Protein backbone atom coordinates (compact mmCIF):
# COMPACT_ATOMS: atom_id res chain seq x y z
CA UNK A 1 0.00 0.00 0.00
CA UNK A 2 1.32 3.44 -0.92
CA UNK A 3 1.75 6.04 1.81
CA UNK A 4 0.77 9.64 1.15
CA UNK A 5 1.72 12.14 3.83
CA UNK A 6 0.02 15.43 4.58
CA UNK A 7 1.17 18.19 6.94
CA UNK A 8 -0.73 18.34 10.24
CA UNK A 9 -1.32 22.04 9.61
CA UNK A 10 -3.21 21.22 6.40
CA UNK A 11 -5.88 18.98 7.96
CA UNK A 12 -8.07 18.85 11.04
CA UNK A 13 -8.33 15.39 12.57
CA UNK A 14 -9.12 14.09 16.07
CA UNK A 15 -6.07 13.13 18.13
CA UNK A 16 -5.48 9.41 17.50
CA UNK A 17 -5.27 7.49 20.77
CA UNK A 18 -3.40 4.22 21.33
CA UNK A 19 -5.51 1.08 20.76
CA UNK A 20 -8.24 3.10 19.06
CA UNK A 21 -9.35 3.57 15.47
CA UNK A 22 -11.26 6.73 14.58
CA UNK A 23 -13.59 5.83 11.72
CA UNK A 24 -14.81 8.83 9.70
CA UNK A 25 -18.36 8.19 8.46
CA UNK A 26 -19.94 9.68 5.35
CA UNK A 27 -23.53 8.94 4.28
CA UNK A 28 -23.69 6.30 6.99
CA UNK A 29 -20.70 4.36 5.67
CA UNK A 30 -17.04 4.25 6.72
CA UNK A 31 -15.13 6.77 4.61
CA UNK A 32 -11.68 6.92 6.22
CA UNK A 33 -9.91 5.70 9.32
CA UNK A 34 -7.34 7.34 11.59
CA UNK A 35 -4.94 5.22 13.60
CA UNK A 36 -1.98 6.17 15.76
CA UNK A 37 1.60 5.58 14.65
CA UNK A 38 2.05 2.39 16.69
CA UNK A 39 -1.00 0.88 15.00
CA UNK A 40 0.31 2.00 11.61
CA UNK A 41 3.63 0.33 12.33
CA UNK A 42 1.80 -2.87 13.34
CA UNK A 43 -0.37 -2.71 10.20
CA UNK A 44 2.65 -2.32 7.92
CA UNK A 45 4.46 -5.17 9.64
CA UNK A 46 1.39 -7.41 9.33
CA UNK A 47 1.04 -6.51 5.69
CA UNK A 48 4.68 -7.37 5.07
CA UNK A 49 4.26 -10.62 6.98
CA UNK A 50 1.05 -11.86 5.38
CA UNK A 51 1.08 -10.14 2.00
CA UNK A 52 -2.12 -10.85 0.06
CA UNK A 53 -3.11 -13.63 2.43
CA UNK A 54 -4.51 -12.26 5.67
CA UNK A 55 -5.59 -14.76 8.34
CA UNK A 56 -9.31 -14.52 9.09
CA UNK A 57 -8.59 -13.82 12.73
CA UNK A 58 -7.15 -10.42 11.78
CA UNK A 59 -10.59 -9.18 10.76
CA UNK A 60 -12.68 -10.37 13.69
CA UNK A 61 -14.55 -7.42 15.18
CA UNK A 62 -14.73 -6.56 18.88
CA UNK A 63 -18.40 -7.55 18.93
CA UNK A 64 -17.69 -10.96 17.42
CA UNK A 65 -14.90 -11.47 19.95
CA UNK A 66 -17.27 -10.55 22.78
CA UNK A 67 -19.87 -13.03 21.49
CA UNK A 68 -17.12 -15.64 21.25
CA UNK A 69 -16.08 -14.94 24.83
CA UNK A 70 -19.70 -15.38 25.97
CA UNK A 71 -20.10 -18.60 23.96
CA UNK A 72 -16.85 -20.07 25.25
CA UNK A 73 -17.45 -19.19 28.89
CA UNK A 74 -21.03 -20.46 28.80
CA UNK A 75 -22.07 -17.60 31.07
CA UNK A 76 -24.80 -16.45 28.69
CA UNK A 77 -26.26 -19.74 27.46
CA UNK A 78 -29.72 -21.20 27.86
CA UNK A 79 -30.30 -22.88 31.20
CA UNK A 80 -31.36 -26.36 30.19
CA UNK A 81 -34.82 -27.18 31.50
CA UNK A 82 -34.90 -30.94 31.25
CA UNK A 83 -38.45 -31.34 32.59
CA UNK A 84 -39.87 -28.95 29.99
CA UNK A 85 -37.80 -30.58 27.31
CA UNK A 86 -39.16 -34.04 28.12
CA UNK A 87 -42.71 -32.68 28.14
CA UNK A 88 -42.46 -31.47 24.53
Amino acid sequence: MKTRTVAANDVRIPDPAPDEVVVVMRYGKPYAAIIDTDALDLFLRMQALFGEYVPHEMGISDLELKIHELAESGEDTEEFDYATFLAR
Partner: protein
Amino acid sequence: MLHADGSLAAFASASDLADAIGRKEVPVTHTCLVDAKIRPVVVLQGRPRGALADYVALKLTRFAKLPADRRELVRQDVFPDLLYLPEDPDRYGLPTENAIDVNSLVRVHRDAIIAVAGWLDPHQVTTLGHKLAAALDIDLRGPIRDGVMAHLEALRRDD
Protein backbone atom coordinates in the same frame (compact mmCIF):
# COMPACT_ATOMS: atom_id res chain seq x y z
CA MET B 1 -6.91 -33.54 39.46
CA LEU B 2 -7.81 -36.65 41.40
CA HIS B 3 -4.98 -38.66 42.96
CA ALA B 4 -5.17 -42.44 43.23
CA ASP B 5 -5.67 -42.11 47.00
CA GLY B 6 -8.71 -39.88 46.42
CA SER B 7 -7.04 -36.59 47.28
CA LEU B 8 -7.34 -33.59 44.97
CA ALA B 9 -4.69 -31.33 43.47
CA ALA B 10 -5.44 -28.12 41.56
CA PHE B 11 -3.36 -26.69 38.73
CA ALA B 12 -3.87 -23.25 37.24
CA SER B 13 -2.84 -24.29 33.75
CA ALA B 14 -1.94 -27.27 31.60
CA SER B 15 1.69 -26.11 31.78
CA ASP B 16 1.64 -26.33 35.58
CA LEU B 17 0.21 -29.84 35.33
CA ALA B 18 2.87 -30.81 32.77
CA ASP B 19 5.58 -29.45 35.11
CA ALA B 20 4.18 -31.56 37.95
CA ILE B 21 4.24 -34.63 35.69
CA GLY B 22 7.83 -33.77 34.78
CA ARG B 23 8.72 -33.67 38.49
CA LYS B 24 6.96 -37.05 38.83
CA GLU B 25 4.55 -35.56 41.37
CA VAL B 26 1.68 -36.63 39.12
CA PRO B 27 1.50 -39.81 37.00
CA VAL B 28 1.39 -39.42 33.23
CA THR B 29 -2.04 -41.05 33.19
CA HIS B 30 -4.32 -39.29 35.66
CA THR B 31 -7.94 -38.35 36.27
CA CYS B 32 -9.09 -34.74 35.83
CA LEU B 33 -12.18 -33.16 37.35
CA VAL B 34 -13.71 -30.40 35.22
CA ASP B 35 -16.74 -28.12 35.47
CA ALA B 36 -19.58 -29.21 33.21
CA LYS B 37 -22.91 -27.79 32.08
CA ILE B 38 -25.63 -28.97 29.71
CA ARG B 39 -25.91 -26.46 26.88
CA PRO B 40 -27.21 -26.21 23.32
CA VAL B 41 -24.85 -26.60 20.36
CA VAL B 42 -25.34 -26.70 16.61
CA VAL B 43 -24.28 -30.09 15.27
CA LEU B 44 -22.77 -29.64 11.83
CA GLN B 45 -23.13 -33.06 10.24
CA GLY B 46 -25.08 -36.27 10.34
CA ARG B 47 -23.57 -39.66 11.12
CA PRO B 48 -26.10 -41.98 9.43
CA ARG B 49 -23.75 -44.97 9.41
CA GLY B 50 -22.80 -44.54 13.03
CA ALA B 51 -19.24 -45.31 12.02
CA LEU B 52 -17.89 -42.15 13.64
CA ALA B 53 -18.71 -41.48 17.27
CA ASP B 54 -17.93 -37.76 17.28
CA TYR B 55 -19.74 -34.76 15.86
CA VAL B 56 -18.34 -31.34 15.07
CA ALA B 57 -20.46 -28.62 16.64
CA LEU B 58 -20.62 -24.89 17.28
CA LYS B 59 -21.61 -23.14 20.48
CA LEU B 60 -24.49 -20.70 20.84
CA THR B 61 -24.93 -17.71 23.08
CA ARG B 62 -28.00 -15.63 23.96
CA PHE B 63 -25.89 -12.42 23.89
CA ALA B 64 -28.35 -11.01 26.43
CA LYS B 65 -25.45 -9.47 28.35
CA LEU B 66 -24.56 -7.14 25.49
CA PRO B 67 -25.79 -3.52 25.46
CA ALA B 68 -29.02 -2.97 23.51
CA ASP B 69 -27.33 -1.31 20.52
CA ARG B 70 -24.86 -4.21 20.21
CA ARG B 71 -27.69 -6.76 20.40
CA GLU B 72 -29.46 -4.94 17.59
CA LEU B 73 -26.34 -5.23 15.43
CA VAL B 74 -26.25 -8.99 16.01
CA ARG B 75 -29.92 -9.21 14.93
CA GLN B 76 -29.02 -7.57 11.61
CA ASP B 77 -26.92 -10.69 10.93
CA VAL B 78 -24.13 -8.87 9.10
CA PHE B 79 -21.15 -10.33 10.96
CA PRO B 80 -19.03 -12.92 9.13
CA ASP B 81 -18.45 -15.00 12.26
CA LEU B 82 -22.00 -15.05 13.61
CA LEU B 83 -25.30 -16.54 12.48
CA TYR B 84 -28.36 -15.06 14.14
CA LEU B 85 -31.20 -17.33 15.22
CA PRO B 86 -34.38 -15.39 16.10
CA GLU B 87 -36.65 -16.52 18.91
CA ASP B 88 -38.54 -19.51 17.51
CA PRO B 89 -38.91 -22.32 20.07
CA ASP B 90 -40.82 -24.60 17.70
CA ARG B 91 -38.08 -24.45 15.11
CA TYR B 92 -34.88 -24.20 17.14
CA GLY B 93 -36.02 -25.66 20.45
CA LEU B 94 -34.64 -22.65 22.30
CA PRO B 95 -36.78 -20.26 24.34
CA THR B 96 -34.89 -17.11 23.28
CA GLU B 97 -32.92 -15.66 20.38
CA ASN B 98 -29.35 -16.87 19.99
CA ALA B 99 -26.24 -16.32 17.91
CA ILE B 100 -24.10 -19.16 16.58
CA ASP B 101 -20.41 -18.40 17.08
CA VAL B 102 -18.46 -19.75 14.10
CA ASN B 103 -15.20 -19.56 16.09
CA SER B 104 -16.41 -21.89 18.83
CA LEU B 105 -15.80 -25.18 17.04
CA VAL B 106 -15.95 -28.20 19.37
CA ARG B 107 -16.01 -31.96 19.03
CA VAL B 108 -18.85 -33.72 20.82
CA HIS B 109 -19.11 -37.44 21.45
CA ARG B 110 -22.52 -38.93 20.61
CA ASP B 111 -22.91 -40.09 24.21
CA ALA B 112 -22.80 -36.44 25.30
CA ILE B 113 -25.78 -35.50 23.10
CA ILE B 114 -29.08 -35.72 24.96
CA ALA B 115 -31.55 -34.98 22.16
CA VAL B 116 -32.18 -33.02 18.98
CA ALA B 117 -33.99 -29.82 19.92
CA GLY B 118 -34.41 -28.18 16.52
CA TRP B 119 -33.16 -27.78 12.96
CA LEU B 120 -31.53 -25.23 10.70
CA ASP B 121 -32.94 -24.88 7.19
CA PRO B 122 -30.75 -25.76 4.15
CA HIS B 123 -29.97 -22.10 3.45
CA GLN B 124 -28.74 -21.58 7.02
CA VAL B 125 -26.63 -24.72 6.79
CA THR B 126 -25.04 -23.50 3.53
CA THR B 127 -24.43 -20.04 5.00
CA LEU B 128 -22.88 -21.58 8.09
CA GLY B 129 -20.62 -23.73 5.90
CA HIS B 130 -19.37 -20.69 3.99
CA LYS B 131 -18.76 -18.78 7.22
CA LEU B 132 -16.96 -21.75 8.71
CA ALA B 133 -14.69 -22.15 5.67
CA ALA B 134 -13.73 -18.47 5.94
CA ALA B 135 -13.15 -18.68 9.70
CA LEU B 136 -10.94 -21.73 9.24
CA ASP B 137 -8.92 -19.94 6.55
CA ILE B 138 -9.90 -22.59 3.99
CA ASP B 139 -9.23 -21.21 0.51
CA LEU B 140 -12.20 -22.23 -1.65
CA ARG B 141 -11.12 -20.28 -4.74
CA GLY B 142 -9.53 -23.34 -6.37
CA PRO B 143 -12.55 -25.67 -5.99
CA ILE B 144 -14.91 -22.85 -7.05
CA ARG B 145 -12.80 -22.12 -10.12
CA ASP B 146 -12.68 -25.83 -10.97
CA GLY B 147 -16.45 -26.09 -10.57
CA VAL B 148 -17.07 -23.09 -12.84
CA MET B 149 -14.70 -24.48 -15.47
CA ALA B 150 -16.39 -27.91 -15.33
CA HIS B 151 -19.79 -26.25 -15.68
CA LEU B 152 -18.65 -24.18 -18.66
CA GLU B 153 -17.10 -27.25 -20.26
CA ALA B 154 -20.38 -29.15 -19.83
CA LEU B 155 -22.29 -26.26 -21.42
CA ARG B 156 -19.85 -26.23 -24.34
CA ARG B 157 -20.31 -29.98 -24.86
CA ASP B 158 -24.11 -29.57 -24.86
CA ASP B 159 -23.96 -26.90 -27.59
